[in-house]
């Protein structure tokens, strides 16, 4: 069901970093087309 689904992963400096989200999603079969970690302050 997840395989091949394209996702965008946006991480946050005080939360979960983008690469970590991406790794989890890829492990679940998603295709991460863009990931980034943002700092909102």
């Amino acid at each position: 069901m997840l395989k091949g689904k394209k996702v965008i992963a946006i991480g946050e400096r005080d939360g979960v970093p983008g690469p970590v989200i991406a790794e989890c999603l890829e492990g679940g079969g998603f295709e991460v087309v863009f990931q980034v970690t943002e700092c909102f302050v």
Partner: protein
Amino acid sequence: MSNFARPVHIGIDGVFYSLAHVPQLVRFGSKPARELVDRPSLQDELNGSLRSFTDAVAYAAHQTFIGNLTPEALRACKAPWFENSIEGASEKGRFGDLVDQGSFYRLLAQADQFNLVSLDQQWLAGLSRGVSDGQRLQLRTSDQIAALIQKGALPLGSGKRMAGCFEPGHAEDVNLTADILLENLAAKATAAHALSSLMASLQMAPMDVDYVISCSEEAVGDRYNRGGGNLAKAIAEQAGCMNAAGTDVKSFCAGPMYAMVHGASLIQSGLCRNVAVVAGGSLAKLGMKFQSHLEKRMPILEDVLASFAVLLGPPKKNQPCLRLNSASFHRVGAASSPQGMAEGLAEAPLKKLGMKLTDVDRYAVELHNPEITVPSGSGDVPRTNYRTLAALAVMRGQLKKDQMEDFVRDRGMVGYAPTQGHIPSAVSYLGHALDALRAGRIKNSLFISKGSLFLGKMTQLSDGCSFLIENAEESWRSNVEG
């Protein structure tokens, strides 16, 4: 026990903070400048939501920043702070000040060695405060200022008139455009003001400063050396520290903690007797959340350039000190998750000192004012950080889960620093920490800063630096010989 049990102390002689209130430079902040290109009509809305200097002075968070209110007293202030001004508030604080826009323009002009800043001579003559110095200023008529703005100089507004303008430094170099140079010179001018004020408050001659480290967030340089740096030396010169050398230490918001550790190391090594750590304000961050503030019908709260200066020197018995061998750095291979950062920057340094998380009386983290960040959805940054530390203490069995809120309240504080990147990053608490240590209200404080290296697109890494401050048990002689 390890050799970390024996403290290596470097004295913290004093700190001075300054807030330059520059409402008419908010439009040059990165976010407003970009939005105004798309929607020029925003300018009127923005102008209508700017604060007066009186309101900026009476703002409880600012009064806390300059030392007239303690963080504990701020917690008791009625929110929202921007609607509940502090009666009788002063622009002069216990360890800081607020500078009005006209005075800032003069500081800017005084810091300019390349005829970038022109001030309107009529405007200057009409200033009610601080026009008596003999320093060289480039004065022009209103017509001349208008003509320069027409040719591309940035307007320096004052109410409904022009106070002056800011010209580009080079016709072709994108690193020397007026907006970049204004950002750089604003950092220099505000940092130099903080350093001069610190010298005055300590009754110390600037000529006696050995070394200046700047951890400001600007990038000084031309097309061949973008970010070449050493704003520190320019700041030292402006503050009259003619016997000082200097250099910059940068790591995004973690810069100030690293700069203090580097400065302390220069003293501990015997290379310098004293080191001033300074930082100027970040023009780019003015109005960063202005859209949320407009939507919520709030005043635009990001209207100040914040700066600080700290003087490090030999330790003195029973006086506040940086415990140099408590310093901890975020390693390349370390985790960047909140838990990983807390382990590396709080647990690790305490562990090597034989201390638990609950042995720290007060944590200084990123003290962003939540009144600025919450309306934009960025959350309450200090509270998030304190809860992470409390959760780690629970995981380690040092705290019960139902004690987490007590931990957050008693060992943390409400944020009060403007969102100026490196400035809120723990160092904002230093003035209050020195007071609390001297008065015996706390026995120590752990300073923790984090840096978002990934924003520069060179690495996915984060960064961080931390250290403990406490009163020294011994003065210098026994520290180095004993």
